């Protein structure tokens, strides 16, 4: 991470950076309280880039994060946390007394750190905020929610709440990495209920619904997906086709075939064909 960051830092930031690194390494977690407020203006808020990155963070599956969603200051924060060997209490303190940018940086860093009690506490903070940047920093563009689901203090209950909030905020399901690996019937029920509620109110339904419910179907799932094939919105129709491919139920093939004959969009036809092959 340090080398990716140093390639991207601007000239002015490169002059500041070695001093900040040295302070963090020598001073430990206490100096982070004074280093973090300056990160956004020193390292900058430009995009980091670099695509998907994996880190081995412990016995469980590796942490994965999409660095295209990260900013230079986010990466600088993660490096300083590592150098200062900051523990959970320090991370919580940085979040609680941090401004808008600092909070974003701390939450992003969690995505490439081992899941601890502090991670769970901060995911709870992100869950309760409606500042979309903060929610996205913790819950999106990484497999943190999927990793946290394995932690006893979070579990599927915490995971489901987080995914429901992502649905509520209309975050694209593609930003929730590996989320399908933790699909479960209770999540399906929550998503289907939210979708029905939205439909009754004439409001937009989360496009990720159709895909996720197919991984853990319950009563009503098949009907919702088949119904989705007739939706006027391309995104919804496509996600219904993708959901049906996951669901893989032979008795639904006549509905898929019937739609395929009339489907005008090439990418949706491709998804329907996949559903027939599966």
């Amino acid at each position: 991470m340090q080398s990716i960051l140093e390639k991207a830092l601007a000239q002015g930031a490169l002059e500041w950076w070695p001093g900040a690194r040295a302070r963090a390494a020598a001073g430990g977690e206490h100096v982070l309280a004074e280093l973090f407020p300056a990160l956004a203006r020193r390292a900058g808020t430009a995009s980091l880039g670099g695509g998907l990155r994996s880190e081995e963070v412990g016995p469980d599956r590796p942490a994965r994060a999409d660095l295209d969603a990260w900013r230079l200051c986010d990466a600088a924060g993660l490096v300083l946390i590592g150098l200062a060997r900051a523990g959970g209490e320090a991370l919580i303190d940085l979040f609680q007394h941090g401004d808008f940018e600092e909070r974003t940086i701390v939450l992003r860093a969690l995505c490439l750190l081992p899941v601890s009690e502090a991670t769970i506490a901060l995911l709870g903070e992100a869950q309760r905020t409606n500042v979309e940047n903060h929610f996205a920093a913790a819950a999106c563009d990484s497999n943190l929610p999927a990793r946290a689901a394995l932690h006893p203090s979070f579990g599927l209950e915490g995971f489901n709440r987080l995914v429901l909030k992502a649905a509520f905020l209309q975050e694209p399901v593609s930003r929730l990495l590996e989320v399908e690996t933790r699909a479960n019937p209770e999540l399906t029920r929550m998503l289907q209920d939210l979708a029905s509620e939205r439909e009754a109110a004439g409001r937009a339904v989360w496009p990720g619904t159709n895909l996720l419910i197919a991984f853990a179907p319950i009563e009503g799932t098949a009907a919702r997906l088949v119904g989705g094939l007739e939706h006027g919105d391309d995104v919804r129709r496509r996600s219904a086709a993708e959901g049906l491919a996951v669901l893989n139920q032979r008795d639904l093939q006549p509905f898929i075939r019937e739609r395929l004959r009339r489907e005008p969009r090439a990418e949706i036809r491709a998804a329907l064909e996949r559903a027939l092959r599966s």
Partner: protein
Amino acid sequence: MRIFEPHIHMFSRVTDDYQRMATAGVRGILEPAFWLGQNRTSVGSFIDYFDTLIGWERFRARQFGMHHFCGISLNPREANNERVNAGVLEVLPRYLEKNGVVCVGEIGLDDQTRTEEQFLIAQLELAAQHGLPVLIHTPHRDKKKGFERIIALLSDLDYDMRMVLLDHGNEETIKLTRDLGCMSGFSIYPFTKMDEARMTAIVLEYGVERLIVNSAADWGVSDPLLVPKTVVKMRQAGVSEEDIETLVWRNPVGFFAQSGRFTPADLEQPAAIDRRETYEGNSMLRGQDPERI
């Protein structure tokens, strides 16, 4: 006419005030940390207050298109409180690095005690270490002596006067401060002390160079529209638009921009208004549909 309100305590004001100020042309504000009407009994109360200034209050202002900056400090009144004064001083360095913090203030003298002086000096030094200007509150009682004492302390420290705003001045104190190279601030109050007409007279006599005008509105009888009202008064008295803009925009913006935390160009556009934003789940919308506003 763009206005920067350089001393107001929005913490103690209601949402209507933000609306009225925005309508009257106020586009940026500086909220110094102050006394909350009664003494705090723990350092934690200060910390929560500072977190509110850099967090919720900044967010609230943005809902009305207003750029919000703040000053962080131990105020002179509570500098006398031995239960908290040293502890508050200890947490200041962290807050003085925050992006929205553009000065140390308000600091200064109130009762003019030895302890107040000790914490004033300590905070002047902190400000210099963090590259921040200082907003100095001057006593309402025995004002002239208070000014003289503060000026003497600054001179003993050989302090950079370009980084100093001496606030709550009047016709008497301008004579002391006009040639020091610092900013001279004037707080306009309803009924008592400095008013719009007296302020206009000062501008007519001394011009607008290194002068700043504010409402210092807080919990007490005060009016967050007194800067716009003073603008009207000055216009009627024939003060040029150029001078008015210098007084209510260029001077305060330039002074606080010395912090290096923002540039005057950052304030050219109103702060982003996205009414769908909420802070920690507390929406300003209270259940309304943002699309329908």
